[in-house]
Every structure is written in C-alpha cells, then in structure tokens.
C-alpha cells in the first residue's frame, strides 16, 4: 500500500513560519513600545520623563532615579555574585572533582529552578530584619537587601555559563599545564581562566542582563521609593519595579508614558548587553548557551 506523504515543501514552509515567530514577536514588542512612546517626542514630554523627579501629584514624571536604581542594583548584584561564582567554578572544575563537586553542581542547577518569588519571599523574612538592625535607621528594604538577594539569584547562571565554557576548553590545556608541574589552582589562574576570559566576561554580562531585567526581587525588597539610590541602605526603585507599580496603580496618561519609556530603555539596555555578549564571545550563544539555557539561562524573574 502506498502511503502519501505531505509535500516536503509545505513542511519546510510551515517550519520556517514557526522560526519567524520569534522575530515577529521581538519586532512587534519594539514597535509597540516605540508607538506608545511617540507622544513623548512632542512638546516637552521627553525632558519631563527624563528628569530626576518623580512626583506625579506635582506633574513630575522623571524616570532617571529608576534608571540609576536599576544600574546600581544590577552592578552591585554582579559585584557580589561574580567572585564566588568564579570560586565555585574553580572548585568544581579543578579542585574537587569528587562527591562534593557533584553536590555543588547539582545544587547550582537546582538553584536555577527555584522560583524568584521564593527568593524574594524568604529574603523578606530572613534578610530584611538583619539589614534593618544593621543600618539602625531605615526599614531594611534597601539597595543592599535587594542586591544580595539578586546576587544569589544570578549566581547559578554565571557559574553554569563559566563552567560550560571551561569544559569546552581543549582538555589538552589542563593536561599540558599539569605535566609542567602546575598545581590545580595554578592551572586555573594561569592557563584555564586566561584561555576562557571571553567566556567568563560574557557570563558576567549575562548575569548583569539578568539582574537588570529582574522585577520581583526589587519590587519585594527595594522599598520602591522613587529616589536616587544614595547609599547601600536607602530605599530605591528599579525600572522594572516602576513598570509593575505604575501599571498596577496609576492611570494618568503621562505616568503611563513614563512606563513605556522605562520599558523601552530597559529593552534597549538588555538588547545592548546581548549585542556585547555576541561581540565578546560568539560561541556563547551557539554552544554555552544551549546547555545553560536549559537551566533558564536568561530568565529574568
């Protein structure tokens, strides 16, 4: 009996359409955001939104404090997460290949699977009171609280991307340096890390992007006061939290427009980081990502 197969060409077209969906989605996100930002470009809308004051009652809709907040938060979080991430990579890659390394790796994988809201929730009850008592004044909902929690959130991403890149290095490098009498930590410091610099840098930027795109941690832990993050213990608001807060509460038109501006700024920032990653290490998207994205590589929540 003859089985009739659908024409190959149709199938290919169908699959191609599916592949186009992501491109269509990303372009429409960008266009829709730009469309809703357009009113800003008439009158003095732009200067009102890109100012340092957010006081909707007085007609002040500046989002610059939130931009500063997002930057401060993500850089601080990366600063806290990066050194231990490298440490953990070193540990599991060269120092301990036994049971402990395996446990650490599995836990790292597992950490990527813990919902963000849970990190935030636990932090509210564990970290906030401690920071509060540390700073004397203040509520404990602060830059430092959010940054520490966010650091824990992005740590596994950085570890896994770095680790994948290290595993991709030619094994001969380790063998050759060991044969010259390098101790494991020397191999890591002088051969493996330098050989994987690009991948490590890309991992850091990836972590930065994730930190910048995260909403819930700052929404739950930063206190959300629309002010410049002047110290580690001040309350502040990130761009992401700003979007969430304003859409949920306000409804004045300029407040909304500031939200679209915030969305656009965020989108462009993260897209720029994405571009930098590609420029730094083009293999990261092709290879390292593939294994890590299965662990929610760039998930922003």
């Amino acid at each position, binding site marked *: 009996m003859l089985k009739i197969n659908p024409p190959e060409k149709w199938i290919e077209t169908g699959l191609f359409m599916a592949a186009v969906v992501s491109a269509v989605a990303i372009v429409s996100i960008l266009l829709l955001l730009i469309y809703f930002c357009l009113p800003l470009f008439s009158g003095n809308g732009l200067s009102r939104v890109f100012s340092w004051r957010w006081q909707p009652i007085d007609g002040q809709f500046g989002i610059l404090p939130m931009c500063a907040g997002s930057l401060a938060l993500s850089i601080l979080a990366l600063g806290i997460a990066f050194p231990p991430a490298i440490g953990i990579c070193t540990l599991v890659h060269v120092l301990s290949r036994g049971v402990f390394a395996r446990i650490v790796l599995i836990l790292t994988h597992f950490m990527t699977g813990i919902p963000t809201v849970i990190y935030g929730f636990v932090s509210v009850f564990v970290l906030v009171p401690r920071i509060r008592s540390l700073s004397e004044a203040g509520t404990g909902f602060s830059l430092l609280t959010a940054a520490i929690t966010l650091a824990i959130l992005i740590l596994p991403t950085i570890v896994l991307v770095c680790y994948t890149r290290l595993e991709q290095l030619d094994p001969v490098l380790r063998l*050759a340096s060991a044969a010259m*009498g390098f101790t494991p930590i020397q191999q890591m410091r*002088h051969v493996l890390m330098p050989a994987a610099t690009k991948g490590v840098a890309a991992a850091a930027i990836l972590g930065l992007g994730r930190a910048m795109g995260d909403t819930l941690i700052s929404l739950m832990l930063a206190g959300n006061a629309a002010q410049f993050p002047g110290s580690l213990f001040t309350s502040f608001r990130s761009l992401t939290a700003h979007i969430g807060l304003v859409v949920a509460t306000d409804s004045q038109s300029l407040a909304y427009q500031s939200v679209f501006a915030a969305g656009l700024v965020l989108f462009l920032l993260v897209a720029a980081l994405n571009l930098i990653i590609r420029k730094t290490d083009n293999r990261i998207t092709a290879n390292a990502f593939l294994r890590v994205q299965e662990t929610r590589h760039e998930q922003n929540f």
Partner: protein
Amino acid sequence: MEPAVVISNLEVLFFGKAVLKDIHLSLWPGRITVLVGPSGSGKSTLLRAINRLNEFFPDCQTRGSVSLHLQNQYHGDIYQNTIPLSDLRRRVGMVFQTPAVLPFSIEKNITMPLQVTVGLTGSALTERMTRALQEVALWDEVKDRLKSSANTLSGGQQQRLCLARVLALEPQILLLDEPTASLDYKSAARIESLLLNLKERYTILAISHSLSQTRRIADRVCVLRQGQLIQEMDRNDMADIRTFQGLMEAAF
C-alpha cells in the same frame, strides 16, 4: 651507574580493564630508550604513568611502583606520595603526541610556566627562554614575533615550542610522545640531532613510529604489545638493518 627510573610490576587499568600489565623497565641517564608498538598498545599510557598524568582520567587505577633516583635530590616511589605532584612533574618533562601550545603568545608559552612553577623573573627569565628556543632551533624563526599568538605557528614549530617549553623548565627526565609526528623531514632530523645532544644531560624515554628514526636515535628499544613489554633490543641488535627489521616484524 644506577638507573634514574625503575618501573616494577606496573599495572594500569582504565575502567577496570588492564591497559598495561606486568611492566618492568629501567631507564638510565645518558641514554635514549625508544618505545615502539602498535597503536593502542599502551605506549602513551606508560609514559603518563611516569609523571602520574594518568590520574587525570576518570576511572584510572595504577598498581605497582615507579621509583625515581634523581641525583642527590630525590629517591623513592612516586606513587607513595613521597614527592609533591607538582615537583615530580617539573622534574619529569613531557612532550605530547600532538602539540599542546597554550593559547597565549610565543614568549608567554615559555616564560609563564617558569614564573609560576620555578618563580624566575627578570633577565634570568628572558635568558632561559632564549636559550631554550635556540636549543630547539626555533629562535631564528620566532625572534621577531615573540608577542604573536603561539597558535599562529605551524604544527612543526608548535611542537618545537613545546619541547623548548619543557627544556626551559630544566627537567631531569624527558618523556617524548612521538615528538616528530607532525614535523617535516628536515625539522624531524633537527629534533633528532637535538635529542642526541641532549641525551648527555637527560634520561630520555621516547615513543616513535618510525623504525628508521628508532634506529638512528635509540640506545635501546622496547617493544610493547597489548600492554606488555615483549622484547628489548640494544644497539647490537640494531646494527644490521635486516636483523633489526626481522626482529621488529616478529615483535609486531
């Protein structure tokens, strides 16, 4: 004279399967011992047993003993943890079957290991590097491009760079895993004469796939088959090319 390396009753297993068994072998300073044998017979594994590099691979077990007798410095079984691993590997230099250059500049390939493991700095460092590069006859080819990446060198140049890197560390024993495999005829001949010069100062164990090369450089030939040393030959056996070939054919 006493041997620099005494291997006795050595057995190496990968995943529970014996790759080398019942190996007894002594290496003397001032002599080149060449290891021959079919592919997969365990030659590289035997080399790696002497600097404990097999330990890098998962599920590898080593039994038996490998004793080093380095002049006035060290005396003992390396598998009894009597010598720190990094010291052992610095004294036993190894060149791999395929060139293993580090992805840095040519200069750094030689200086960095010296800085890290020996702690050399300054002019002593440059001096050693220059000397090592001259010894492998690479100096003239690279002296104008020391800062460019070692990956830009040709296969043969890379292999010579690896040899220079090992010589710069001033080991006492040299393990060479087919050091001329990726070289053209001329560079191979140069490495061969270099080895003949070096043999005064070192204890050399080399692997070779070429019978004529073996004849040119070997003071002693050991034939390995399926993980066992089945024959040893010295210069006398090699003197006549016919008898040598006959012996080798019988061995393979």
